Structures are given as C-alpha cells and as structure tokens.
C-alpha cells in the first residue's frame, strides 16, 4: 500500500512534467471571443475581433508602410471592436512563411500573393475566399482599373486585390548621361549597346542588376523577348504553337548575351541582391537601372531623384513596339477561406481598398496604383520623374507578364537559373532554348 502511493505520486509528477514539456498542441487562445461584460443581447457586430494582416511592408520609412499604417489606425478608430494585427515581413520571408502556413492550412486572415501562376496553387487548394460579393459593396469594384482584376481571377471569381499596377521601365541618371556626352536616351538596342560602351569608356558603370535575386535578370530578358517576338510568347508555348527553340527566343538570348559581353552590368552582379543594386543606382554609381515602376517613389526620394529620368525599353533588331511593356500587376491582398472572421475581414479589406487610392495620393505614391485616382498629380506637387512614369503608364498598349507569373514554379526556377548563367558564361542560345523546353516538358 505504501509503495503504491509512492508510485502514484511519482507517476503524477512525471505526468505533470510531460504535460508541461511535451510538444505540439499550442492552444489557440480565445482572445477574439473575450466578450466585454455579460450583456448577452449584444449584436454580433460588437464582438471583439482580431484580424491578422500579413504584409510585405516591413520598412516603416517607405510610403507603402506609412499608407498601410494610416488606414489601419483609421479603421481601428472607427471600429473599436476590431484589432488589426500586422505581420510585416520582407518579400522572400513572407513567401516562405505563407507556403509553410498553407501546408498546415493556417493562412492568416489577410495575406499577400502575386498574380496569376504564382497564386494558382493556393486558389486550387481552396485556401482563399472569393471576393466577388465584397467587391460589389460600396462600389469597390469600380475603383479598379479596367482588366487589372483578371490577373487575380480564376473561374470568374476574384481572389485577391492588387496594391499596384506596374510596368518595367529603364530608369537613367541624366547627369551621368550628360557627363558621358550622350544627348538622348537610346531608342534602339544598337544605340543602347553603343551607350553602354561610351559610359564604360568613361569609367561609369552602365547598368546595375541585383542578379542574386534571379528574377531581375529574367525581367530584362523577357522584355527583350517581348520585342523580338511580340506579346504572348509563353502563352503560345503553353498552347503548343511555339516552343523554346523558336528563333524569337534564341534571338532574345543572343541579344541579352551581347549586353552582358559589352560589360553593361556591374562586376559581381550575380552575388548582389536587389536592394544593394538599387542602392548603387540611387547613389549615382550607375547610369541605368531596369526595374518595375514600383521603384519610382524610392528613386524619386533618393539623392539622385532630381537627375533621374525614365525611358521606354528600346526596340531590338528593329523589332517590337516600345509601347508594349513587361506588365507587373502588383502583389495583392487575399483573404483566407478558413478565417474565423471572413465577414469582418472582408469588411476591413473593403474599407482598406476604398481608402487606399486617397491615402496613397496624399503620400505621393499613387502613380503606380491599380485603382483610379481622383486628383491632379502635377497640382499635388508630384515630381517630373513621377509625371514621366504616369505618362508612360497612361500610354501602355499591352505586353507580357513576367516568366514566373506565367509558368509554374518548377519551370520558372530553371529559367531563372538559366538566365543567371548568362551573366557568368557565354552559352549557345540554342542550348538555352533546349534547357527551357526540357524543363517545361518535364514539369507540365
């Protein structure tokens, strides 16, 4: 008897220790349901709600983060029962985190996705709530530019709302161009190559590229392909009417290699990340920078802001229409289908997107929005650079999405590496095409 009580106490102690230390089962706290005071007759609206808002604006000094913060504060002030919890990460971290969360079906109430191919897997897995009903509320749908929501629609349902609508442009430093004696930005690829040579001879780095993040080089390459082929090359590969050994594709590879061989890019481009490369341009260490128009605000506010200009990507071998651009529909806000508060979250996002253009306009960050903006940019004091970009955006005559927004991730990855390789060695363009085709065929 005595022995058995001792045994029991040991067992109890052990069990306690185990329950304290064992892994798993993190109890979801019911913070969201702590009703204030016993009044059971309260309308459901007054229920306290916490909405997790995963976003990619971690740097509080950027306009995007300021805009987000402002609207969130505004909403919380008007809806005292709602608390918005921000989960701000940089782009790559957010991508990895969302994938991990998606694997265990724990997507945050609001998250961020990229358009088309990059969000398809999530939509197919039923992780996002359709937003059609919410778009019809308060006329939100009409604030979006025509056609932009198509990039986020599957089976007639809209699953995400974009924060921007960008095109790829070539930013350039007017002062460095003048120093090198170049009168006007190039309009043909030959002129571009000639300018590269002139700049290089003057000891100026012609172009910067953050090619450690492989999408940057691909973005430029795809713009060349857009000129040699016209829009829709990847689509015709998917349709089966073309393949990667097409002359338009190999011509683009050759043109790209000409640029590399001419020494257009800074030394060590493949180990430099996106931010470092952009900083080289923003500190006047390079004459040109090929990037999406989302960089406009940051460049505008940098030290070379007054000297910065943009030009359209030139024609290649006399081909292409310079009013066709690499299109970059922005990253977009999606709502988790498994959210505990789908309606409340929709309500918030509806408010957020309605406020977005106005607040962005005030923060001087509205040229690249996906929504219509009421207001006169020039009158509001937007800089010449911003006005130039606004002008370009107003004259866009179609174009293509980036490679990784069009093709599945596995094929994209092969493509991105293949283009990165062009920076470090000369490759037969036919073999580049073959590599692409093999990757596409084996990952269909």
């Amino acid at each position, binding site marked *: 008897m005595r022995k058995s009580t001792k045994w029991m106490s040991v067992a109890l102690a052990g069990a306690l220790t185990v329950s304290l230390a064992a*892994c798993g089962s993190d109890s979801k706290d019911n913070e969201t349901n702590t009703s204030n005071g016993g009044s059971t007759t309260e309308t459901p609206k007054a229920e306290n709600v916490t909405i997790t808002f995963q976003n990619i604006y971690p740097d509080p000094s950027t306009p995007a983060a300021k805009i987000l913060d402002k609207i969130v504060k505004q909403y919380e002030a008007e809806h005292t029962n709602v608390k918005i919890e921000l989960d701000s990460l940089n782009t790559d971290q957010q991508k990895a985190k969302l994938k991990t969360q998606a694997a265990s079906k724990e997507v945050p109430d609001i998250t961020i996705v990229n358009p088309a191919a990059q969000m398809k897997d999530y939509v197919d897995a039923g992780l996002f709530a359709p937003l059609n009903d919410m778009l019809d509320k308060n006329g939100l749908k009409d604030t979006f530019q025509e056609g932009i929501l198509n990039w986020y629609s599957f089976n007639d349902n809209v699953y995400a709302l974009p924060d921007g609508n960008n095109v790829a442009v070539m930013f350039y430093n007017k002062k460095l161009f003048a120093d090198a004696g170049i009168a006007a930005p190039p309009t043909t690829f030959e002129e571009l190559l000639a300018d590269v040579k002139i700049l290089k001879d003057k000891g100026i780095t012609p172009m910067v590229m953050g090619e450690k993040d*492989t999408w940057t080089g691909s973005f430029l390459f795809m713009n060349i392909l857009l000129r040699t082929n016209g829009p829709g090359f990847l689509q015709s590969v998917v349709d089966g009417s073309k393949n990667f050994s097409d002359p338009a594709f190999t011509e683009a590879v050759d043109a790209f290699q000409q640029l590399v061989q001419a020494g257009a890019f800074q030394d060590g481009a*493949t180990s430099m990340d996106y931010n470092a490369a952009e900083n080289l341009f923003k500190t006047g260490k390079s004459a040109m920078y090929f990037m999406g128009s989302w960089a406009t605000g940051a460049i505008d506010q940098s030290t070379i802001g007054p000297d910065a200009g943009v030009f359209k990507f030139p024609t290649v071998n006399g081909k292409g229409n310079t009013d066709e651009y690499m299109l970059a529909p922005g990253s977009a806000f999606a709502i988790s289908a498994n959210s505990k508060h789908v309606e409340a979250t929709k309500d918030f996002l509806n408010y957020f997107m309605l406020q977005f253009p106005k607040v962005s306009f005030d923060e001087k960050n509205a040229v690249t929005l996906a929504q219509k903006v009421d207001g006169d940019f020039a009158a509001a004091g937007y800089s010449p650079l911003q006005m130039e970009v606004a002008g370009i955006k107003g004259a866009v005559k179609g174009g293509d999405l980036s490679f990784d927004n069009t093709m599945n991730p596995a094929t994209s990855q092969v493509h991105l590496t293949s283009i990165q390789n062009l920076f470090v060695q000369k490759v037969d363009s036919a073999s580049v095409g073959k590599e692409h085709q093999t990757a596409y065929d084996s990952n269909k």
Partner: protein
Amino acid sequence: MNALKVPARTIALFVLPCLLLYVCLVFVPIFYSMYTSTFDWNGIGVKKYIGLDNYVNILYHDKVFWPAVKHTLLFAVFSMLEIPVALLIATLLNRYVRKPNFFVSAYFVPVILSVVIIGQLWKTIYNPASLGGMINQTLDSLGLHSWTHSWLTEPDIAMYALYFVALWQYLGYHLLIQFTGISNIPTEIYEAAKIDGAEGFKADWHITFPLVVPIFKISIILAFIGSLQSFDMIMVMTGGGPAHATDVIATHMYNMSFASSKFGYGSAIAIILVIVCLVATVIINTAFNKLEKKIG
C-alpha cells in the same frame, strides 16, 4: 554506480519529457519527410503518391544534385583537413605561449559572430575592386592585377571562396576543442617522459596525439556533419548561384521545396542527406574506435 538508489522506472519517467521532445523535434519530422518524399506535392494542394519516383529522379535525372553532392563532400574533406591544423596550432599554443587563453579566445571570435554578418563581411572583402573589395584592391596595388577575380561570381572559383570563409570561421571552434583536450592531459605524464628523455615533438607524437584522439574524433565528426548541413552562409553569400555553381545538398533541397514548390522532391533530398549523415557518422566512429584500440 547506483549511488542514488532510484528505481529504474523513476529514472525512465524523468527522462521521458526530454525524450518526448527529442522524438517530436527529431524523429517525427524525419519520418514525416520520409512520408512526404513519396509524393508529388507542391506543399499546398493535393498530394499524388508516386512511390520512389522522387528518389529515382534525384539520383538519375537531376543535373544539380550530383554537383551539389560533390560540393558538399569536398567541403567536408576540407573541413576535416582543417582539424589537424587546429591540433597543431593548439599544441604550439600550449607549449610556447605563456598566456594561451588570449589567443584561443581571439581565434574563437568568428565562431560567435552571426553567419549573416560573416557572410556580408566576406562579401565585401571579395567584392570587385570597383566596389571596394579588399582582396582585389590589395592585389591591384601590388601590381598583381592579373590575379584579381570576381571571387563569388566566377563559377570555377566561387565554391572555393565559400569554403575558405567557412574554414576561417570554424578554425577557432576546433582549436578550442583541441586546446581543451590537450590541457586535460596530466602534466605528470610529460614529466615522466622528460625523465625518460622524450621532449618536444617526440613527447607530442607519443603522448599528446594518442591521448587527444577521442577529442580529435569529436572534432572530425562535428566538422563532417557541420559541412554536410552547410546552408546559411551559402544562402547569404551566393544563394547557390551563379547557375548552381555553389549549390550544396541543403541549398538544393531548400530551392526545390520553396522556390520550385516541389515539397515531395525536397523531402526526398532531405532524407538522402539524413542517410548520408548517419552512414558517415557510423563509419567515422568505427574507424576511430579501431584507431583508439590500436593506440590504447
């Protein structure tokens, strides 16, 4: 040695929490990876069972995998070759330096620095001269312009540039282990040997080295496994590029899982890595046990 007189089952109970944690954090993920490695799965949607196809593809059709294995193993070899050097320095420090602790601490500093900081630091050192890279600028000023390289972006050199940083960082770590091992050898043994006429290198050969073998073994295993798992420094410095030239098994696994969205495939690579680690540990252990017996 049952001084505590505690029944075995009580011991078992108190070991249990730790054991459970260990099982949850180590074995469950490994077995789960084994399970997912038999699927064609993007990590989000529906899993499709494909048996061992992932393994077949990795071993026979993956153009990145075998070079990555080569890079990893070469790294392991270099790391292990570093241990004798660490042992030698430790011996010298022990014998000729009056206050060796200062040197050991100094060598140890890189180990406690974050890998990200080390990566950024060496990236700057390796930079092209035009961007202020220290090595290239020094070479230039010595008139050795032909020796300058874009260290991290030339496919033939980049991997070695990375090895060097890792070896540099971990020299202090192994030095500390070896140094401690040597310090623990009782001085009486050396005194006795001195009377017998064995001094200096002779004493090291017959006393220090044999007695430090168990410590040496630990270092070797740590170095080997550490280099098989190398990941963070490469991600920071090159991301596996240019064009896979610096991919190792772990970075390839990460890229496949997260960039290419092939989680099943990534899991299969992870399982292969686990197997390689296990086999290698067993081999090294057996080899050293034999060696110890032979010397002992």
